[in-house]
């Protein structure tokens, strides 16, 4: 049992005790002292009231926007994310396997500055495993995109809201291969000892790898978005498409990304956000070749959400589209609206 402090404790002890970090003797004193207990209870009451102050937390979509902006800004200031990883010290090679099969495992050590973090968090070692030679440089493979072969297949806008979504969003012109790293070979040197003292015996540094032609961050994001679309991960796809036009609002991919962002949202079942995204697309790219198609799609989404006036306007805009499928979808949309408004 802790001894009780005979005198009333000072402000610091009181404050600490209220924070739950007080000395046991002080806590015991407070429990037995009417004046101290009264003071603490008064403070506790104020704190409880202050915790009830209203908090306006942002909507999910707003959070998503901020998240996207953080990741986009982060990738701009962070070459490792987008294009080229900095050289990392490599611990060594482990050869395993029997007979013909040889599996090379190598653990990528963190930058020296992060060593303390690794000690606190060994789970991080699970990340970034790359077979390579000691001292190898890592870089994301920077392949130019395959040449576009004609126009990619257009998504079909058909009669129902669901059908108005693109049936085949795949774009063969865009490579959606998973990100790869290219390991440039290190000069032939003996493997480093298991745990050398780096300061005592610095290993010869390999010559820097020649710079690879880098793809723009928005292109990488665009590829990532399409990979996500194909995988059916529409949340990630929507985020990646929005990242494209955040990274390069005037870039060549911005218009496409804006359109497919809205489509991804619709495919992900986020109707309200999709409607907003389509509206933004149509406002920003009114002369786009996809304007009619977007109008028909948003028209059906608006029908589903009960906004018939705007739906009718969008269908009327889509009815002038040069593509028969879009015109047919717009006509069916107008018919559907007429049927719903006709008195029984």
């Amino acid at each position: 049992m802790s001894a009780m402090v005979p005198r009333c404790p000072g402000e610091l002890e009181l404050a600490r005790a209220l924070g739950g970090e007080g000395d046991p003797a002080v806590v015991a004193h407070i429990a037995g002292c009417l004046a101290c207990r009264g003071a603490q209870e008064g403070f506790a009451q104020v704190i409880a009231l202050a915790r009830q102050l209203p908090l306006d937390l942002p909507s999910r979509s707003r959070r998503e926007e901020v998240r996207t902006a953080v990741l986009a800004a982060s990738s701009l200031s962070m070459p490792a994310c987008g294009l080229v990883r900095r050289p990392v010290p490599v611990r060594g090679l482990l050869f395993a396997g029997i007979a013909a099969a040889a599996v090379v495992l190598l653990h990528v050590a963190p930058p020296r500055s992060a060593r303390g973090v690794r000690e606190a968090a060994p789970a991080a070692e699970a990340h970034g495993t790359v077979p390579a030679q000691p001292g190898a440089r890592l870089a994301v493979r920077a392949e130019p995109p395959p040449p576009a072969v004609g126009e990619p297949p257009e998504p079909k806008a058909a009669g129902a809201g669901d059908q108005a979504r693109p049936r085949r969003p795949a774009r063969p012109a865009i490579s959606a291969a998973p990100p790869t790293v290219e390991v440039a070979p290190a000069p032939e040197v003996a493997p480093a000892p298991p745990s050398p003292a780096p300061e005592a015996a610095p290993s010869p540094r390999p010559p820097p790898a020649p710079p690879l032609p880098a793809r723009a961050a928005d292109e990488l994001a665009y590829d990532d978005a399409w990979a996500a679309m194909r995988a059916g991960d529409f949340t990630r796809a929507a985020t990646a498409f929005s990242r494209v036009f955040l990274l390069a609002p005037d870039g060549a991919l911005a218009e496409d990304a804006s359109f497919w962002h809205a489509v991804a949202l619709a495919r992900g079942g986020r109707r309200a956000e999709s409607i907003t995204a389509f509206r933004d697309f149509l406002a920003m790219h009114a002369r786009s070749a996809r304007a009619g198609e977007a109008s028909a799609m948003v028209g059906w989404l608006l029908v589903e959400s009960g906004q018939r006036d705007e739906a009718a306007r969008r269908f009327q805009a889509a009815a002038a589209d040069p593509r028969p499928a879009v015109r047919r979808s717009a006509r069916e949309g107008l018919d559907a609206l007429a049927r719903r408004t006709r008195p029984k």
Partner: protein
Amino acid sequence: MTAKLIPLRRIDGDATAMSDEALLAACATGDAAALGALFDRFCDAVYRFAGRLPTTDELARDDLVQATFLEVRRTAHAFRGTSSVKTWILGIAANVARHALRGERRRRVHQARYLERFAGAPALVDAQVERRMLMARIAEALAALPRDQQLAFILCDLEQLPGAEVARTLEIPEGTLWRRLHTARKAMRAAVEGAR
């Protein structure tokens, strides 16, 4: 020797299973997915912290959250594990807020907006209005606290982070933190008692 192409491993699927410290370590190596996972895990806490600051409006709050996570990315390598990741991130948010809202004029404008939320209570005295007025006094008292005391009160009493960790994160002696906290509590209590 020819170059070899090896897929870059991503943490996408496993992020939820990773510890906060592991995510931060991955973030320190430049992993954007880890930063995204950290954002998902802690953005509510940072938003809540920012929302409790009386001097932030909606846009400033978004800015603060964004700046905080960019700073997390930039300084992830400096995390030493002396506090929880949440305390560390909220400490960054506190520092960002301290720098971002230094201008007194701007502070006053935001403060006025914050207090508008509670303005307009009718003179009728019933339980609801009385409570509304009490909350207004508390909000006013919190807004009137000096910034250092505000941060101490929000981080320790509202976010309920350990004082020792908060002191380390804010780079102040522990005694200074408790003193600030005590002064803040006294001011808040005086506001409540004045309302009764």
